[in-house]
């Protein structure tokens, strides 16, 4: 009987002939990703009583959440992380300004087809866009992985999402994600491995695929994966130095469910307050006034996203009533966007540029919301109070929808500007 991606990759890692969903295996992950919470993880690690991390080459540490430090508390936390990095001789440390951990991880060659990656952040599944098995874990567990080099995993059941057709103009991977989350709901893929396939996926850039795997966390997925192809290999060339062998699901694998979707007639989608699965086509929410627009984050802060926004805003100016924040996902993306003139165009249109990092997405700094305000954001979560006030409204949409909305000051269909 055929096996899913998760069953195959975890069997390989566990050194077992074959395994089946539901089974519990112990594996040595290839990478452990941690961010600003490294200081707390390090404190837990010290309580275990082990002097050295099991394998320093496993650790990838990126300071991204509140960078540069917004106050003394954050500064002390960053200081503790830097001290831990020096003490444990961890080479893969990326200090403030490098970018968001989910973007920096693959950029610096720490994600590859067939790799097993765990990270102390719920959007760790992003790296599945490269054919890796990537799952989020908690702080305590991250400390345990540091100490032992191993982790227990329950082999997830799998959901196959088959995307047919092409995407209409100004409709993107983000709209596909939001539509699927609205369909499956916030718990529709709980504990599951989501496999994305089909011609619509093949046509997507690597960056767009990262949007899909990133957003899969919002339907409860343990991990999500896109099968590697030439685009994947071209993206990884010059970044990944070690040999790897892609893992593909068998054609006759057993799935918990298979979802078929034709994207040809898909309209832009918007997630309304206060849950990501509260999704409506843009025609139903158009006209809603917003005070702020955020374009960026680990969901939509890549070059193609900034390009889509600039294409709409170039030579124009945002509405007087709106604040537009641009948050590139990494230094590499910021440099590429500068070279292309995208940043110049966006700033000329009235945008405020933030340094690569998590920015206001988690409500700690750089653009928090006041009571009664509304934001259209390209990020992945609209939980109540996430971006500041509990009495603020967060709408989620694509970069094109965000740019069109910034232009008018009300939620606007990007196909109409």
């Amino acid at each position, binding site marked *: 009987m055929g096996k899913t991606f998760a069953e195959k990759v975890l069997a390989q890692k566990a050194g077992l002939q074959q395994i089946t969903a539901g089974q*519990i295996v112990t594996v040595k992950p290839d990478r452990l990703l941690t961010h600003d919470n490294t200081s*707390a993880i390090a*404190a837990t690690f010290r*309580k*275990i009583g082990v002097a050295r991390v099991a394998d320093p080459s496993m650790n990838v540490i990126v300071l991204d959440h509140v960078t540069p430090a917004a106050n003394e*508390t*954050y500064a002390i*936390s960053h200081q503790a992380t830097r001290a831990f990095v020096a003490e444990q001789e961890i080479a893969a440390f990326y200090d403030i300004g490098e970018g968001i951990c989910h973007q920096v991880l693959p950029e610096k060659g720490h994600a590859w087809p067939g790799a097993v990656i765990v990270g*102390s*952040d*719920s959007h760790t599944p992003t790296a599945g866009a490269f054919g890796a098995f990537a*799952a*989020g*874990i*908690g*702080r*305590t*567990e991250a400390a*345990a992985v540091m*100490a*032992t080099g191993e982790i*227990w995993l*329950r082999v997830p059941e799998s959901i196959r999402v088959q995307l047919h057709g092409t995407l209409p103009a100004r409709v993107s991977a983000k709209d596909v994600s939001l539509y699927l989350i609205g369909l499956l709901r*916030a*718990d529709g893929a*709980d*504990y599951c491995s989501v496999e994305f396939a089909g011609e619509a996926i093949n046509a997507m850039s690597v960056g767009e695929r990262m949007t899909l795997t990133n957003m899969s966390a919002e339907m*409860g*997925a*343990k991990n999500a994966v896109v099968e590697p192809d030439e685009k994947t290999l071209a993206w990884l060339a010059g970044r990944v130095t070690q040999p790897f062998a892609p893992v593909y699901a068998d054609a006759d694998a057993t799935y918990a469910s298979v979802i078929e979707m034709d994207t040809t007639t898909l309209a832009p989608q918007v997630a309304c307050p206060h*849950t990501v*699965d509260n999704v409506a086509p843009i025609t139903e929410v158009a006209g809603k006034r917003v005070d702020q627009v955020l374009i960026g984050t680990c969901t939509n802060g890549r070059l193609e996203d900034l390009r889509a926004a600039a294409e709409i805003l170039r030579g124009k100016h945002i509405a007087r009533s709106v604040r537009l924040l641009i948050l590139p996902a990494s230094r590499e993306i910021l440099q590429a966007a500068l070279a292309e003139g995208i940043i110049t165009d966006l700033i000329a249109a009235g945008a405020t540029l933030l340094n690569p990092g998590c920015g206001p997405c*988690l*409500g*700690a700094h750089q653009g928090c919301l006041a009571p009664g305000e509304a934001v259209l954001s390209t990020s992945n*979560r609209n*939980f*109540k*109070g*996430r971006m500041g006030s*509990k009495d603020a409204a967060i709408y989620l949409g694509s970069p094109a929808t965000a740019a069109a909305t910034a232009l008018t000051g009300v939620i606007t269909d990007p196909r109409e500007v």
Partner: protein
Amino acid sequence: MKATQISGRLWVLRDAEGGLYNDIDTDMIFHNRYLHITALAQMGQYTLDNLKGWEDFARRAQAGDLIMAGRNFGSGSSRQQAVDCFQALGIAAIIAESFGAIYKRNAINSGLPLITLPRLSQYGEQFQTGDSLVVNFVTGEVLRNGVERFQAQPFSKVQLAIYEAGNLFEYGKVAEK
């Protein structure tokens, strides 16, 4: 070794419409404005203070109490504090139809019992705040007010071993011996 059968007073988390609360996310459980707090003793007071109708839960709960909710409890971020805050209050177990994937791992690894009652939303109205429950982790049996029996998923082998050891670290020490 800890007891594999517990009993306690139940809190049923209901929403404004009176149904079991679904999709209680980690920001509702432990809001991101408290994420700088790392001392367990300080976490309890903020538990559920961003969940509409349950803002004062921390002041009403007592050690040994049990909590019940609907589907997808603990969805969202990987933050450990959303588990730790219940342990700070001494909550003995959380019962729900399903849990967020990372939340479930965090709770298992911290030794906080999560009880999964499949299809709970179909009969959740039978449970009331103040009910007395007995829960057996090995058999999955849930006994309400000494009379009604419900079947939860029994703990998996690794879940039970971690719980009995106390948490993932104590389990690791046992495993090495």
